[in-house]
């Protein structure tokens, strides 16, 4: 079992929390980090290890807003890992929540979802503000 991630977000980096026992990975906020490989490297590593070692399912909960290009690439890599696991018979799913005031985020989430065959929900949520 890999140690869980608990990365506190900033104005330019998302909050990232993983829960190995619960089979859950949560990411929230804007993402245009200075070093996205360092940041997402940890997430990709955790996901890969989880899918390789654990036997229970994995659920991604996303509330991402703005993503820069390297963050988009990292998310595509993560979805590819999920897709491979799904093809291999694992239970994986994604819920992407977006603010109803910003429908464009839903459209972008749909672009990500395009090649995914596992359950991928895009869910509106009322702003908390």
């Amino acid at each position, binding site marked *: 079992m890999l140690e869980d991630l608990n990365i506190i977000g900033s104005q330019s980096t998302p909050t990232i929390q993983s829960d190995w026992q619960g089979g859950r990975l949560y990411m929230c906020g804007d993402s245009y980090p200075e070093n996205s490989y360092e940041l997402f490297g940890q997430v990709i590593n955790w996901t890969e290890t989880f899918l390789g070692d654990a036997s229970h399912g994995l659920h991604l909960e996303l509330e991402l807003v*703005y993503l820069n290009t390297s963050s*988009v*690439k990292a998310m595509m890599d993560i979805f590819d890992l999920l897709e491979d696991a799904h093809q291999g018979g694992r239970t994986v799913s994604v819920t992407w929540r977006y603010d109803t005031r910003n429908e464009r985020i839903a459209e972008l989430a749909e*672009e990500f979802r395009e090649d995914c065959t596992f359950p991928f929900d895009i869910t509106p949520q009322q702003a908390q503000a």
Partner: protein
Amino acid sequence: MTKPQPKLLQHVEELLQDAAHQDSPLREPLAQLYQHHLEQQEKLERLITIADGYQQSAHEDLHLTREQLEQQIRRQQKLSRIADRYQALLRERNLALRAASSVDPLTGLANRRRLNEQLEQWHATAERHQRALTLAMLDIDRFKSVNDSFGHGTGDKALELLAGGLQESLRASDICGRWGGEEFLLLLPETSLTQATPLMERLCQHLRQLQIPVDDDRHIALTASVGVAEHRPGDAIDATIKRADQALMEAKHQGRDRWSAAPA
């Protein structure tokens, strides 16, 4: 292999088995040559099988590589498409923020920040190309008593209607913004004081006709005083604003509901 060969081979084999040639001195070398040929043929066939195998696997590799390349291209296109859309999103957000930060929320006119930006730009143009530039400072007459008598709701409504009236009286190239509480600044580029005169007449006339609703069936009329100053080459823009302010005071002193020009 060409066709005559099996025939030839069969013939050689028969000759070798024929008792009539048992003692021929050519028999032994022919037997060896025949044996050698059979071995070479087997080697050649093995070689061809191996070479075909290589070719097959090279072909499969090529196919796989091509598939991987196509997949990479599709991935790259998807990445670019999504990244472009995020970029467009950010750009729109920037534009919206800029618009929000330059507009007065109540009247929808330019705010003081936007006016200052435009003043700086037009001042530079006026100085560099010797173009005329005229400013007009407008203040609603006795606005405080409107607020006091009818409440701030009516005051706000008056500001909104007046702002609409200002926009209608001005030309497309002019900019009008809210300078302070009930004070508005008009920027008239490429306009001398003489050219501004009919505009000021029209403006005061237009404002007099505005009806501000107080409640369901009562309306009040408003007037405004205006101070106009043509920019003097070499002056700082603040000096021109100050002259417009002084002309505005003059219009108020003269009894309001009028415009007054700053001395050149």
